[in-house]
């Protein structure tokens, strides 16, 4: 299985990556497993995936194309420790909760808010993908439920976890072509 070509298109904070596979669809359905900076994001039947990339941020997108129905995206995915974390929590059962604030602490530094997620009574699972984390730094996350007046409920603490990457984090440069709205990433040796 080989990705034979890819292209990236950026619109605001959204970057869409589209790939071409050499797998023959007649041999079975092709599934694409997507990773962003080593963190598994999900799979699709479509060869395209859209990533959120904040201004000034950069990331490494990886995709595995396979026709193996038993493919395990965690144990058979790209090797290496991710530089992003998926913050996961289950919804509050308190009827007064209207949103969740996700905070991040770098080392013993101050807490910074990385996301505010509206509470959806029909959704039980919530996830937020962090920005790119600094190698060899310890991070702690917390999810704070908020009511309509902005009062904080009991926070859920996650971590601390030290980010260690092997090999060292890749060094990218990103170039935006304003004419085509395409971003070109180049990994430095």
């Amino acid at each position, binding site marked *: 299985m080989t990705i034979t070509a890819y292209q990236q298109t950026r619109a605001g904070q959204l970057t869409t990556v589209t790939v071409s596979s050499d797998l023959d669809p007649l041999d079975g359905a092709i599934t694409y497993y997507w990773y962003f900076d080593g963190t598994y994001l999900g799979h699709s039947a479509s060869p395209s995936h859209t990533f959120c990339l904040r201004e000034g941020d950069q990331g490494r997108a990886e995709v595995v194309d396979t026709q193996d129905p038993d493919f395990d995206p965690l*144990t058979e995915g790209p090797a290496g420790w991710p530089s992003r974390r998926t913050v996961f929590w289950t919804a509050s059962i308190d009827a007064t909760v209207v949103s969740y604030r996700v905070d991040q602490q770098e080392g013993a530094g101050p807490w910074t808010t990385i996301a505010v997620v509206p509470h959806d009574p029909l959704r*039980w699972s919530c996830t937020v993908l962090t920005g790119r984390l600094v190698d060899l730094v310890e991070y702690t996350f917390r999810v704070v439920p908020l009511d309509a007046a902005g009062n904080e409920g009991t926070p859920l603490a996650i971590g601390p976890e030290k980010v260690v990457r092997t090999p060292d984090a890749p060094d990218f440069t990103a170039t935006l072509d304003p004419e085509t709205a395409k971003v070109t990433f180049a990994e430095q040796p």
Partner: protein
Amino acid sequence: MSKPGEHADALGILSASIEVQSLLAVETIPGVVILAAAGSNGPGVGYLRCANHNLLSWEAPGDGGRAGAESQCSADGDYLLEAAEDDQGNAQPEKWIRVRVYASRLVQGSAASVYLRDVYSNAIAGADVTAAEAAAGVVVTWQVAVTNRGSGWLHRIRVWLDALATGLAVSPDGSDWSAPTTEAAALNLGDLGPGSQVALHLRRTILAAAESDPGVLSHLKFSFQAF
């Protein structure tokens, strides 16, 4: 139906009085919060299902579509879900997840892929050390508490290392170190009554210039007998 503390999860590993987590679970089904996943599940994708009559079941990663016995979870509370027998017909009680159920929120017929990933920097693996950090070599020691979380006695608690756990050693007192790699040669921690605990010391030696490998963690194995 298994209750928490009555089966393989009766043996807990605590660090500073907090249960050590070996795996982090991402995703679940409505009405279910995954409190803990046994390290024996291994990283990978498992499946959590809720059939009719609030029957929950757990399929551990790599079990090839075989879900464990269904547990009826019609009341709010904590439950233990265990994996199915392996493809040789051997029971796998060590592959469990402990869940908290909010019964009124269960959706019958729901299912979810649960992503289990390794937890680094926990009290078992110790501090992460990169190749650069370990360039000069490093020896780290620390201790955890092996705890009986159940309501009955646990006998002949033994601990040994996976053959992949190079550089790791265990000790009951922090001075008499050994690195057994089979259950027969395991370190015997004795018996534990309900709620009691015993110290387990761990020592990790990283040779100078050793390269770190994200695929190899410190693999501790435990066994015990209970009635």
